[in-house]
């Protein structure tokens, strides 16, 4: 009589029923209300093999492993951000300890637009909850190679930024073409830093992409890329705004499509990202994802308005998707360049402007990385914000080689000349985080 899950699945809910960016903001108290209703009414928590976990807040030291918060963590986070990230840590523990085969953190606020340096809120995100989780897993469980598949409709520019220089993290983002949607980035030429070429893969899809298109790129690109990279862990940034009922995007995906995508990807951990059709999409998509993760039959998961409002993908859109897929396949799977275009020890620099839409902050960043074949390379970032901050952050990666470590220490020392409002040193091997 009691239903049984095919795979043991952990669930962590944190609907934050007492937190909103502002009263009428999409990221508000009501967002997961109807999802919780639908999950409870389905009786999913009674299914044998589906286990619900209680959230706990993450700590500032958890955040420091993924971010440089300016001026500090307290200034850019609220309790809700800490609990949302903490929910991911609970999901990670459940999977890593083998209590469940996979887990889904249904938490808010989201995180995939939060970049390495945080001055405030971008695209509803303050801290990158996936990155905080991944760095926690690396530290605690000794995992090295991780793949993130971001299926939110918006380009996961924050996650891309954090892992831009990390050859041990494969970041794949499937999203609505940046020429038609926030944040306007996520093109195939954005393919990772000098030491991590090809471990950032962007798959922009045309507006009106349907079930067929999403599953097509999953099979043609995402699954082969994962086979090629051979990650120890697969994370799904499970944004739900590709849905045909979503008010702020133009895609044409469905609950059943999300369930199929998930069944194909089989992520170890899924983390909720965006998705703001709080009544018409989220309840069905989330139920579909949970059931797919638990290995249950999802053929009855169908929006009440599916038959009337779902629009099958047009042949024109199908053709566009095939064309872009071919280019990406060529670049990342067939003609993959293995060697860096830089000489060992070169210092490679880039300068960027970053805008924080939610908090209306402008930031200019200047990055220097040491080209290195032995480790991910030491990274120095100078960041200047319209809030008057002018900081230097030096990051010595996990497994850093001696030349990179020495270079990092030197950069940090040079920074002590009083030119900066704050200095940061993140040394992952020695578990040091210094802020001056």
């Amino acid at each position: 009589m009691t239903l049984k899950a095919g795979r043991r699945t952990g669930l962590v809910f944190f609907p934050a029923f007492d937190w909103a960016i502002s009263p009428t903001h999409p990221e508000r108290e009501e967002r997961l209300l109807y999802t919780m209703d639908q999950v409870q009414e389905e009786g999913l928590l009674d299914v044998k093999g589906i286990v619900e976990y209680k959230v706990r807040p993450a700590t500032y030291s958890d955040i420091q492993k993924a971010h440089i918060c300016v001026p500090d963590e307290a200034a850019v986070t609220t309790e809700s951000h800490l609990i949302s990230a903490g929910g991911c840590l609970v999901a990670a523990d459940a999977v890593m300890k083998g209590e469940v085969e996979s887990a889904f953190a249904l938490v808010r606020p989201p995180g995939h637009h939060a970049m390495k340096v945080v001055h405030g809120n971008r695209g509803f995100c303050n801290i990158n909850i996936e990155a905080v989780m991944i760095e926690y897993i690396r530290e605690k469980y000794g995992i090295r190679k991780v793949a993130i598949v971001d299926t939110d409709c918006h380009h996961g520019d924050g996650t891309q930024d954090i892992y831009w220089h990390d050859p041990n993290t494969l970041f794949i983002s499937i999203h609505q073409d940046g020429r038609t949607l926030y944040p306007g980035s996520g093109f195939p030429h954005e393919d990772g830093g000098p030491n991590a070429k090809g471990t950032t893969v962007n798959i922009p899809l045309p507006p009106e992409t349907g079930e067929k298109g999403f599953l097509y790129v999953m099979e043609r690109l995402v699954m082969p890329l994962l086979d090629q990279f051979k990650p120890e862990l697969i994370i799904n940034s499970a944004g739900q705004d590709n849905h045909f009922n979503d008010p702020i995007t133009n895609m044409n995906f469905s609950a059943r499509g999300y369930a199929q995508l998930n069944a194909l990807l089989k992520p170890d951990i899924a983390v909720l990202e965006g998705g703001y059709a709080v009544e018409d999409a989220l309840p069905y998509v989330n139920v579909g994802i949970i059931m797919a993760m638990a290995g249950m039959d999802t053929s009855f998961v169908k929006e009440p308005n599916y038959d009337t409002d779902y629009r099958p993908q047009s042949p024109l859109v199908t053709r566009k998707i095939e064309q872009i897929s071919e280019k990406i396949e060529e670049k990342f799977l067939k003609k993959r360049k293995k060697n860096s275009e830089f000489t060992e020890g070169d210092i490679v620099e880039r300068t960027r402007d970053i805008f924080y839409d939610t908090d209306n902050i402008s930031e200019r960043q200047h990055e220097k990385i040491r080209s290195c074949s032995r480790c991910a390379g030491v990274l120095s970032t100078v960041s200047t914000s319209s809030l008057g901050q002018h900081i230097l952050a030096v990051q010595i990666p996990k497994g850093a080689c001696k030349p990179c470590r020495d270079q990092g220490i030197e950069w940090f020392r040079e920074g002590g000349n009083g030119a900066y409002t704050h200095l940061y040193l993140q040394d992952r091997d020695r578990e040091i985080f210094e802020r001056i």
Partner: protein
Amino acid sequence: MILGLDVGGTQTDTVLIDGGQVVVANKTPTSQDLLETLREAIEKVLDIVDPASVDRMAFSTTLATNAIVQDDLEDTGMIVSAGPGIDPQSHEVGPSYHVVDGCLDHQGFEALPLRKESVMHAASRIREKGISLVGVVSKFSVRNPAHEFQATNWIEDLFAHIAQGHKVSGTLNFPRRITTTYLNAALHNVHANFTDALTQILKEKSLFSPKYLLKPDGGTIVLDESATSPASMAQSGPAAGVMGALALDSCAGTTLVLDVGGTTTDMSVVLDGAPLLSPSGIRIGPFQTLIRSLLTHSMGIGGDSEVRVDKENTFRIGPFRKGTPAALGGPAPTPTDAMIALGLLKIGNRNTAVNQMKDLGKIMGLDTVSTARKILKLTAKSIADSSEAFVHEINAQPVYTIHEVLQDQKIEPTSAIIMGGPAPHLVDYLEAALGIPCRVPDHFEVANAVGAAVARVTCALTLQADTSRGFVVIPEANIQNRIGSGFKLEDAILLGKETLEKRAVTVGALRGKFDITVTEKQIFNMIRGYSMAGRNIRLKMSLTPGLIQEWRTRDDA
């Protein structure tokens, strides 16, 4: 005088309470025939008192539990409408289960009308099987009971009794709603027959005072009103024990209640006199239901558990019961034999108990007394470990607001009450194992009957108001009223209180001041686009389990 009666697995306890004191306590063996057991137990008491002096009677029975566990449920048809989610066919229950067309969404909006032909077809299939009891359930009917009303209207002339899903509970859980509705329908006649027979017996004995039945949530309901949800009287035994503990001890602070029986030990927690309720419904046999219950856990160790020596040469206690203790003619040594061997319990054949201890101790080179003590120590240790796990699980229950996460209120028992037959002989061992003060209350051996006798009426309701849909719904009370956009939290609380008080009086509460607890209070602004479209208000309120006034005044005195 109050008559309290608790039918247990092996013993039926009866008490008479006068002026806040237990004046008579009796035990009768429980026989196969429930009514005969009740008759015998009542007759024993009436040998002592005049029936006219009894002004309240309360019973905790095994009727529903036995019918369910022994599969004596009457054939019942189910008509179910669902919508997106799990395949509704996988919730199949009973011999004639039918999924019909119709769908309500999570807010109670009709996504697909209920199709009359589909319902009538299901009804005729059920009738063909000669079935006269039916349950009607739709997904999200607690948000909008319209489809259940509609189906009932169409088929009510065809069946003897129809149970509706929304009345079961306002809690969202479609599979449990189906199961509970099914049980309510399938137990309808069994329960009615029992009620009639009990009323007849009481009449014969000239007992005319108000009659109550105990529920697993530790509350009572007046017998005449119990017919609408007979399943909600199932498995009241553990609740009787907790209410007994509450009656016999003030349960100040955080109290762990341990009821050590023959086969199992029941555990629960009382917080400053308020027993903890289970977040989900009770499980009876294979059925997961929406029936409210106290949070109790039963572990497989009791006085009659088998004691053996395992491969590593250590004692193992339970989880099996092979029969009565060896000293009483049973096949294997038990903790009770250890008590008999130590001279703590003066029953059965002490020599047998001593010999059993000697045999067990031999392998480890222990003498009789050390063996017996070691067994009791281990028994207490196992119970303590299990209680710790039970409390840990309570503390691991998820919370959904920042406020609750940060508050992180942890339950840590400050003392324990030990009840059940072996209580006085285990209390010191348990105190050592638990590391908190333990005590055994007076009349602990009839605690369940006392609990049944003095438990007050409980009832609960769930209110959901959605000003954008324009309705307030209280499913348990069959209320679905239109509201305007100005409907506020205060209006909801007022309506909830009025409804709950009315309901409380109907199910047997005495008029007067009610102890209403609002257990959940949430209000959400509903935003469509970037503007406010309405308010979504959610309340859960209840009359929580407690003791009747007559008993409480004893404490004040």
